[in-house]
């Protein structure tokens, strides 16, 4: 496959996976912090690699803030949101590079539920003037929900989805792009 075809296929793949991330998050928005986002980003990180996952995350954050029917987060919180979701591919390609099992990834996902919430603290206390303890106490409930949601989804769905995704990815890149008959 030529580099050009590879780039087109990569772009399509990134767009599809970013769409899946966006749709599931919007569909589950009525449930506070219960979503498959962490699971999917973990999965993308392990199957697609750091660069593609980072691009998917960046597209997702902008899409969710521009297109979500529930509205955007305040602009000052967007960097925290980008950093929060990017933390998964960053951590999984650095200090947790060897974490491959669903158990270890589920525990990382559980901890991430809290870390993601804490990333919004600096802007909340320094720019929005929310008192630190008030924010921490009010948010802890939602951090627990996200931590449990991440733990369960990764523990149960990571391995079957990874198997499925690897198979589909291999098939996708194996199919060659033939010139059309008119051009032959």
């Amino acid at each position, binding site marked *: 496959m030529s580099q050009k075809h590879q780039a087109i296929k990569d772009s399509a793949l990134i767009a599809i996976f970013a769409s899946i991330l966006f749709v599931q998050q919007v569909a589950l928005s*009525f*449930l*506070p*912090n*219960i979503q498959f986002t962490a699971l999917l980003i973990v999965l993308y990180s392990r199957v697609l690699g750091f660069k593609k996952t980072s691009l998917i995350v960046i597209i997702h954050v902008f899409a969710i803030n521009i297109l979500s029917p529930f509205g955007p987060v305040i602009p000052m919180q967007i960097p925290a949101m980008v950093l929060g979701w990017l933390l998964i591919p960053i951590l999984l390609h650095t200090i947790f590079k060897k974490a491959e099992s669903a158990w270890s990834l589920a525990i990382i996902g*559980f901890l991430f539920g809290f870390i993601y919430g804490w990333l919004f603290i600096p802007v909340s206390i320094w*720019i*929005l*003037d*929310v*008192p630190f*303890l*008030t924010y921490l*106490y*009010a948010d*802890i*409930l*939602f951090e*627990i*929900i996200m*931590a*449990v949601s991440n*733990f*369960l989804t990764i*523990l*149960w769905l990571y391995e079957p989805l990874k198997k499925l995704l690897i198979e589909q990815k291999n098939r996708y890149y194996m199919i060659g792009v033939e010139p059309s008959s008119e051009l032959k």
Partner: protein
Amino acid sequence: MKTTVLKIVASIIVVLTAAILVHFLTTNNQALDDGSIRIIIVDEDGQTVFDDDVIFMKDDTFYDVLQREFDLTCASSTYQSDPTCSYIFQSFGYEGRILLGISNDDFSIQTDWADSFIAIEIYDGTDYYLATQGVSNIEFLENDQIRISFRAVTEGLS
């Protein structure tokens, strides 16, 4: 098989622990006895429009106390003004009404949630600090001092 059993056990433990924590953190605070609290209400211009003791009865929530004394406007499910306060937000992790307006014969404060909101603060003896729960779940005790004030979103919270 062993792994699946282990996963089921771990999932049950995590969900149960979280459910206990969520229940503990979302306790519906009701008055244990009859009594009174001091309510201070501050309007859009920063003027104190109400400052008086208000009575509460056993099993009252803070919302019940306010409803007995004032005319309240709450948020509907789409965050529109609802003077009947009939809608109660109910979801895993949060439950209760959202207060958008409060008034009596002498004053009226109305917020729209998008650009303004009602801040509820509790006096701890030296300063006011923001309540960590909504109007339906705020904990209050005899002689507590609670301030309700109009806030523009751009002002920040403190």
